[in-house]
């Protein structure tokens, strides 16, 4: 078990102000994956997210949200598009592109 395990995926207090979780970012804006957090209720999830492309440094963008309630979300990661549940997107920490956008 990694040390950066949180009971609920939240921002650690020390994180930079630009660091957000993917379920809370505005639509249509590019971000970069910072890291994928492990949710103890679904321990497999972090690895599965990494396998489908959510790796540190990868570009992500929330394309649209389902109705009602904004869940699930449609997320572009690299060249792929995935539908993710809010709880899944919450495990993905992102930061502003900071000029790294291609």
């Amino acid at each position, binding site marked *: 078990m990694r040390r950066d395990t949180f009971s609920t995926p939240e921002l650690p207090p020390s994180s930079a102000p630009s660091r957000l979780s993917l379920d809370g970012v505005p639509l249509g804006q590019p971000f970069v994956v910072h890291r994928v957090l492990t949710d103890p209720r679904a321990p497999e999830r972090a690895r599965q997210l990494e396998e489908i492309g959510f790796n540190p440094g990868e570009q992500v963008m929330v394309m649209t949200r389902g109705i009602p309630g904004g869940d699930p979300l449609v997320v572009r990661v690299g*060249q792929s598009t995935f539908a993710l*549940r809010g709880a899944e997107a919450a495990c993905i920490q992102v930061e502003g592109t900071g000029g790294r956008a291609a």
Partner: protein
Amino acid sequence: MTEAVIHLHPPGRLAALVGNPNAGKTALFNRLTGSNQKVANYAGVTIERKEGKLALPSGKTVRVLDLPGTYSLHPRSPDERITCDVLQGTARGEKRPDLVVCVVDATNLRRSLRLVLGIKRMGLPCVVALNMADLAESRGMRLDPDALASELGVPVVSTVAVQGDGDAALRALLERPEIWQPTTTLMPVPQPPGDELPDHERVRQILERLGLDMVAPHLASDRIDRVVLHPVIGPVLLAVLLFLVFQAVFAWAEAPKGWIESATAWLGNQVGALLPEGYLRSFITDGLIAGVGGVIVFLPQVLILFFFILVLEESGYLPRAAFLLDRIMGGVGLSGRSFIPLLSSFACAIPGIMATRTIANPRDRLVTIMIAPMMTCSARLPVYALLIGAFIPNRKLAGFELQGLVLFALYLAGILGSLAVAWILKRTTARGLVRPLMMELPTYHWPHLRSVALGLWQRAEIFMRRVGTIILVLTIALWFLASFPTPPEGATRPAIEYSIAGMLGHGLSLLLAPIGFNWQISIALVPGLAAREVAVSALGTVYALSATGEGTAEALSPIIAHSWSLATALSLLAWYVFAPQCMATLATVKRETGGWKWALVMAGYLFALAYLASFVTYRVALALGWG
């Protein structure tokens, strides 16, 4: 050299296609093997196993296995597990492949190459097919297979699975004996700068060195998604689309149905005229031709429905529909992932139940399996079409075919019933689980005529094989039961009433009379247990034998319109919405769930629901004066 290799590797060499879902693997498989395919199941599981023969230009043949798509070598669902087991050589009854062809989506190298690195580590000879190379280049990516080959240490060729000679480079590569060698690779493996690096980091560096690390926007797909996934337009579009599909199933099939009916009647008359009066003539015309012809009539409708499902699947729309429905499905304790198996169940519950293997959550998978038979499968269409044709007037209501509207209502009844059952199961078995979605929405593309045609051909073959085997056998068996024993001297009632089937039907009708079924229906339901559409041919046989004059399949509709009340017809329709009248489905459930328990639970609860629905329908219809 070549001779020696041929001796080392006998003609049964096996190449396995492996790749991410949506990498165009199956299109490449179809391109390589043409219609030379064998569709079966893997030992012990009902996961579809597709093998084909590839004839190389030199005349040698290679067996090609199309493995289920996977994102990684850590399986997360039963079908991904098959891929991993086959590659490790641990799949039951399966030879470990001699060569792995990694099918890579050239437009999505980042994710695909991670899988390639993982497969390479398994120690099997491996080549890479850079598929969708044309699409990648049209997006401005400059692909250099040789450069990628030296980075990866395995041979790489470009392929375009959807083009006539798009697999030429791969075929030429498979001719080269050295790629099949288990120990040596074609090129020396360059020691990567940091072997201890995680795979995604290595892939990133490779793509950076090859100048392929930019992220191209998907303009066309995104434009379509702005409409298709729109919060308001999206769901409306989905509803309209499904409605039009069901209208088309009825409207387009009208003409071909007519041709098949006339052909059946003509054949019956021709054969009848050749044979002398007696058992043989009755057997051929009433048993065989009326029975089997009555089912073949519905082939056009089955094919039209499959055509739409295949086109929607090929175009990339189906996962979008699943996304749109995720919230509704969540309300009854399922996820959008259950949508695709359930939609497939509209064609047939068996591929639908098999498709549940993509659902990772075991509870969701079981619930989806349990409600799948309530989706109106194509085997119900013959029954619905017969009853609707006989009892619902052929006129328009608010611009729509009334018959089509009734059909739509029957489909809706099955859907609502399944949602209700899922909701009850949610209340009793789901305990606040968060279930994974992580579903890929592939870029849209035009469906390829070739793949759709191949899919339709396989469905038509399966349908005709059923007609030729189980339906034929049961029809013949029913003819015997309905013809013997022969009526005693001076009998006044139709001969069938004195037969075994007649007695059986009368017995059953005691149980089924409260829901309005007469003894003819009761007889037809017995062989209908084996396969739903058999009930139509059985009714054809029963009425043909009970008619005093001539009776053939084409005459069945007016006969029942004349002899049944509307209440009985509606009750039978309600019965067919729920009744689990398909042994093949129950057998599939047994295999998929690993025992008879769930198959029996399914049969029990669906029969109970069917009886209840028919009872209510019949009583309400009687109260409305439709008796």
